[in-house]
């Protein structure tokens, strides 16, 4: 390593080791250790926990949240928020199912579903940047609109009663519930997307501009960054990722459900926050968010594995959220 680095700060990016050290900055390391500790405890507590089958079930179960948290991490880094993810998941999955059910070629239907997610994301971004409605309000509105539209896609406007729609294409089923050897395909998708977007955020011009916008929007604008474009990009990417999650969720059970993804926005935000991303913007990482999602998934799994009363599960996830942020805040306090 030939870089001139004073003060022992981690190495800069640019080669593999640098990239790795950047992936696991101190903040992510904290939650990662928490996850490792949790996994160790669980492997002692239950003989079944460390079985590959169980581990793959856990990772498959978190893949939707993981994929959506990629987008939301970017949105939150820009200083925004997206509450509409769960609804975008439902509406995209439902449109895909409806089109397939109506006889459209499955892959074309999938493209339409992804396109719808992208479209919703674009609309979010445009309203936020051009009309200047705050992200919270815009996406809160979109949460309702998306959910409502998923009912419309399920039943038609006059419609009979809201219904689930079957989604029986083998390709789509593979996308959401297939296996490559013992590895669930959704896990492969999640890992690939996480790696790609982590690299993107850390090493591309647009990726760094996302951080700049959240760090100081005015300064970014004065530096010549097209702030609106950066924001629209983050919301649109979130939209298309939600679309993918929706199609996967439908493919898993061969059914697109109108209540799919309900409440997911809070799970996704919790994962991102546990992973060390600040809601104030300007910092955070996708790896952290995925570790956050993994912590929540392991806790949920633990309660089933150990026959613990479920009410404690909800409490413990709340405790984890607060602990994670509290530790982060203490760590920052020390740096001052």
């Amino acid at each position, binding site marked *: 390593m030939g870089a001139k680095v004073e003060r022992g700060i981690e190495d800069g990016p640019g080669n593999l080791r640098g990239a790795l050290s950047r992936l696991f900055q101190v903040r992510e390391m904290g939650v990662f250790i928490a996850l490792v500790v949790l996994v160790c405890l669980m492997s002692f507590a239950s003989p079944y926990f460390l079985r590959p089958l169980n581990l793959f079930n856990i990772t498959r179960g978190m893949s939707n949240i993981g994929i959506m948290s990629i987008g939301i991490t970017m949105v939150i880094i820009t200083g925004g928020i997206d509450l509409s993810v769960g609804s975008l998941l439902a509406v995209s999955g439902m449109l895909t199912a409806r089109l397939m059910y109506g006889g459209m070629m499955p892959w074309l239907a999938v493209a339409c579903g992804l396109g719808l997610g992208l479209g919703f994301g674009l609309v979010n971004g445009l309203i936020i940047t051009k009309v200047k409605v705050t992200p919270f309000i815009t996406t809160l509105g979109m949460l309702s609109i998306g959910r409502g539209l998923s009912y419309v896609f399920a039943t038609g406007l006059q419609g009979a009663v809201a219904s689930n729609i079957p989604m029986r294409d083998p390709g789509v089923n593979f996308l959401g519930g297939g296996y490559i050897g013992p590895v669930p395909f959704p896990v492969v998708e999640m890992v690939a997307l996480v790696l790609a977007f982590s690299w993107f955020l850390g090493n591309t*011009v647009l990726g760094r501009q996302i951080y700049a916008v959240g760090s100081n929007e005015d300064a970014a604008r004065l530096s010549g960054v097209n702030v609106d474009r950066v924001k629209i990009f983050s919301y649109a990417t979130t939209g298309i990722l939600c679309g993918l999650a929706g199609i996967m969720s439908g493919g898993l059970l061969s059914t697109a459900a109108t209540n799919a993804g309900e409440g997911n926005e809070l799970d996704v935000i919790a994962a991102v926050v546990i992973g060390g991303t600040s809601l104030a913007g300007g910092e955070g990482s996708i790896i952290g968010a995925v570790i956050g999602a993994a912590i929540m998934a392991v806790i949920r799994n633990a309660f089933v594995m150990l026959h613990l009363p479920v009410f404690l599960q909800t409490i413990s996830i709340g405790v984890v959220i607060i602990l994670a942020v509290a530790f982060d805040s203490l760590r920052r306090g020390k740096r001052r």
Partner: protein
Amino acid sequence: MTERGDDRLLLVKDLCKSYGGLNALAGVCLDVRLGEVHAVVGENGAGKSTLMKILGGAIRRDSGTVFFKGHEVEFHTPHDSIRAGISVIHQELSVLPKMSIIENIYMGRMPSVMGGVPWKRLEKRTIELLGQVGLDINPHLQMNDLSISQRQLVEIAKALSKDSSLIIMDEPNSSLSEHETDTLFALIRSLKERGVSVVYVSHKIEEVLRISDRVTAFKDGAYVGTVESASATVDDIIRMMIGRELTREYVPNSSHGPVLLKVKGLSGGGFEDVSFELGRGEVLCFAGLVGAGRSETMRALFGADPIRAGEIEFEGRRTRFSSPKQALQNGFAMVQEDRKRLSLFMNLDIMANIGMAQLPRIRRGLAVDRARLRELSQRFFAALSIKARSAYQAVRDLSGGNQQKVVLARWLATNPKILILDEPTHGIDIGAKSEIYDLIRRLAGEGVSIILISSELPEVIAMADRAVVMHEGRVAATLPRGEITEHTIMSYATGNIGGKPR
């Protein structure tokens, strides 16, 4: 007069800009030659910052013309202006706090190689640039971790990196120590040698005359005149700016009283073994370089930061404040240096900002007594002649000088016995400055003890009854009135005499 003089890089003619009926610029002119350092001076609201924002593409003009490199131009976005070859270092530092120095320098025009940013190359280039501005720090540090003056230098390095033909510096040295200002001036001279033109906006007239080739003055959004620096005096410039003379001489203070505050061996984060005494009605100046530990000492005294060791005796009793609230209750008040971050509620109106520290005292039951709040803020509004449409205007929309007056008003409203002022004239114009000096003298005359932290030597010389000079966290000297000169202060402040070597 031709409109396209050959040696002119920038020509601004009759530029106008108004905000909601208020004229910020009413026909401003400016011409900058190739390789010239051109200073722009003017009071609050003279239109300097507005002009710089227009040239930087941050806002658009209403009318008038701008020629750059012989072509008429109009910048719609900051990006346009940067591409044309203009760099603006904005007055209120606009940095990306949570990002590295490299990213701050290259944000908005990062190169891309096969989709990725070539970090190694940028790192190398950044180290070179930092060297040019005299900074020897890790380019991966976050801006958060730098001092204000280091940030300022990074901003300048950023401007250098753009290979601009015109660099506009809006109050570049307002937070720099004398030493850092010297580095900056050397830098400006080397830019000039390379044929780069610099527009230098400042309130510090002595320095303006030292560095610039010509000076242009604005007043109330209009052009006053341009003079050659070599043949102008400080008084000439001040007269152009405010149309009157300014007293910058020490006024003997006869109201010295008995000792009110004794500090012995105070130690904490960033300062060691600090001792001093303060008399009733005395103006005690703390001089030194930026980072000498003056603000840290005062923050600890005020209860805002922890004290490791030492004694404080106030009104004959041993005291130590565990919170600013306690200090306030005991008659201390402190005006912080970074008013934007530490003092002002930018979105709230002037009235709320003035009354904020007083709210617990002016309530009726659970509710704030609005009438008394209004009365209180109106009193200081008038006493400090704050220039605003009304007490209901948001502080965000005021000039720096008026914002500072609002902060002062808030603390004066608490009726302090000891008023600590940390760089109170930082970044404000000469007119407001002189008003603040008058105010300090008046308060001292009324028996308020003043601790004034200042990095500006003329300010220390004009105000101090006595001066404490700090160097690297320790007291280097305590100077009586007779020994306060630029030379003695600088010698102690730079550690050339007296400072305990570590």
